[in-house]
């Protein structure tokens, strides 16, 4: 952990950090100027017009409409600027580039678990440098919040619903990951590190850890595929059985019987497992049972990962 940042902000180590910092400093300096102006005037008036005797008889000052109007208009303009600016950077923070490398994040009292597409799992986050990384996060209990000060990103993590955060690290180093949403007793211990590797090191790390991990999500998914009897209706080789084949399913566009359509992304796949009747793909019937909703969250993730791999 090299650079310590500035007095106000921690080291900046992501592509968005620069934009956030620029806005932060803009508001900080405008605020400082305003503050000095207001408080300076206050001190000046308090001294200049201090009471000299109890017989002082100040005459009322006529209200100056121009001044009243100006301190309505000027602040309005200033806040309009920072709103639009903040809004633009917010969009940048919110929309992950399409080529992002995805990592699954599981938050629970009081630790983080990171799962990589290769099957590696770790309690510290490992990411490649100069590559957008998108985290798909879910909680197993209460609300947590994923916070990397050096990247200027933060997002709450809920049970029962994915939330996302993305960043692109700009420096090989390690940074702190904290839980920002109060989550109970050991909230302040729910810290870990994000290790930024070079692209090669990252591949190596993945390879080394995939070997050590007992099974990848996709492998666990494969086991579940046979355990749960999915093969009965879903082939892996494109042959149409009772249900759609899994081959090439992920990422394809699904046309539904009600005329709508959707892309088969992770959320769709998960939805289709836990609630198959919600959307019926054209050419199929609503035959699949809804009982798979009782699978554990980890098993569902594994199945989704398995389907995505086909």
């Amino acid at each position, binding site marked *: 952990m090299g650079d310590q940042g500035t007095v106000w902000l921690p080291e900046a180590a992501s592509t968005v950090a620069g934009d956030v910092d620029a806005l932060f400093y803009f508001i900080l300096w405008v605020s400082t100027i305003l503050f000095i102006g207001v408080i300076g005037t206050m001190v000046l008036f308090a001294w200049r017009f201090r009471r000299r005797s109890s017989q002082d008889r100040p005459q009322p000052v006529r209200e100056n409409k121009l001044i009243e109007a100006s301190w309505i208009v000027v602040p309005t303009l200033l806040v309009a600027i920072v709103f639009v600016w903040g809004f633009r950077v917010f969009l940048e923070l*919110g*929309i992950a580039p399409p080529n992002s490398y995805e990592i699954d994040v599981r938050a629970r009292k009081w630790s983080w678990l990171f799962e990589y597409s290769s099957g590696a799992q770790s309690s510290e986050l490992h990411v490649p440098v100069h590559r957008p990384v998108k985290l798909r996060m879910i909680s197993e209990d209460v609300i947590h919040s994923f916070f990397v000060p050096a990247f200027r990103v933060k997002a709450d993590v809920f049970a029962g*619903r994915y*939330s996302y955060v993305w960043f692109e690290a700009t420096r090989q180093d390690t940074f702190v990951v904290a839980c920002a949403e109060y989550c109970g007793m050991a909230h302040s211990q729910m810290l870990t590190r994000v290790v930024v590797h070079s692209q090669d090191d990252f591949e190596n790390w993945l390879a080394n850890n995939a070997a050590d991990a007992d099974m990848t999500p996709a492998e666990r998914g494969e086991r579940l595929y046979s355990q749960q*009897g999915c093969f*009965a209706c879903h082939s892996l080789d494109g042959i149409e059985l009772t249900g759609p084949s899994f081959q090439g399913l992920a990422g394809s566009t699904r046309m539904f019987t009600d005329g709508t359509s959707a892309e088969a992304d992770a959320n769709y796949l998960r*939805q289709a497992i836990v609630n198959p009747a919600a959307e019926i793909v054209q050419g199929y019937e609503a035959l699949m*049972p809804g*009982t798979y*909703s009782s699978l554990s969250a980890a098993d569902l993730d594994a199945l989704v990962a398995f389907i995505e791999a086909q």
Partner: protein
Amino acid sequence: MAQGHHIIPIRTLAVVFAVLVALTIITVITARIELGVANVPLALAIAGSKALLVAIVFMALKYDNQVNVLVLSLGVLFAVVFLSLTLADTELRGVLGITDAGTTVIAVEAEEVLQEEPVPVAAYQAPEEVYQRYCITCHSLDGTVGVGPSLTGLTDRQPPDSILQSIMDPDVIVVSGYTGLVMQATLNGLGFYTNVSDASVDSLIAWLGDQ
């Protein structure tokens, strides 16, 4: 008359009451007619008119100090603010990809399930229908092995009691070469256990004996 208040004539009160009763009847009738998306707004519009009538005449807002009208309007206004700004979140999550669509991925949404008309529990169903609806996907009648074993000559292999158990509780005995859990999960999902009467199951077993 020290308070100097407007006394609302009995006639006015009676007319308003009659209109309220009429509107109640209308809202019941219109709600029972299928109007698609119009049902909800219509019912709310009728309820709104009724509420307005009660407020204006029964609560005498028409004759009251204007400030009380303002007070009531503010209350309603902020209830609407609460409602609409909350819905601006709950209905639009997922815009910009900041979070994903929908509210819960783990919880099951059951709306579409309901669109299938549930089969009445007591109704008797012919064994052919039952077979077509619940069994054919996995069990053939021509000896070919699918997800499950073929049902030809089943009664030669198993007594009726055992067949009944295999249907109602398929995981007690799983024939080697086949996968457990699948049948019960499928039948559960299709609503077999709630929708097929005991009599139908009995006749299904008898019918299987003839195959």
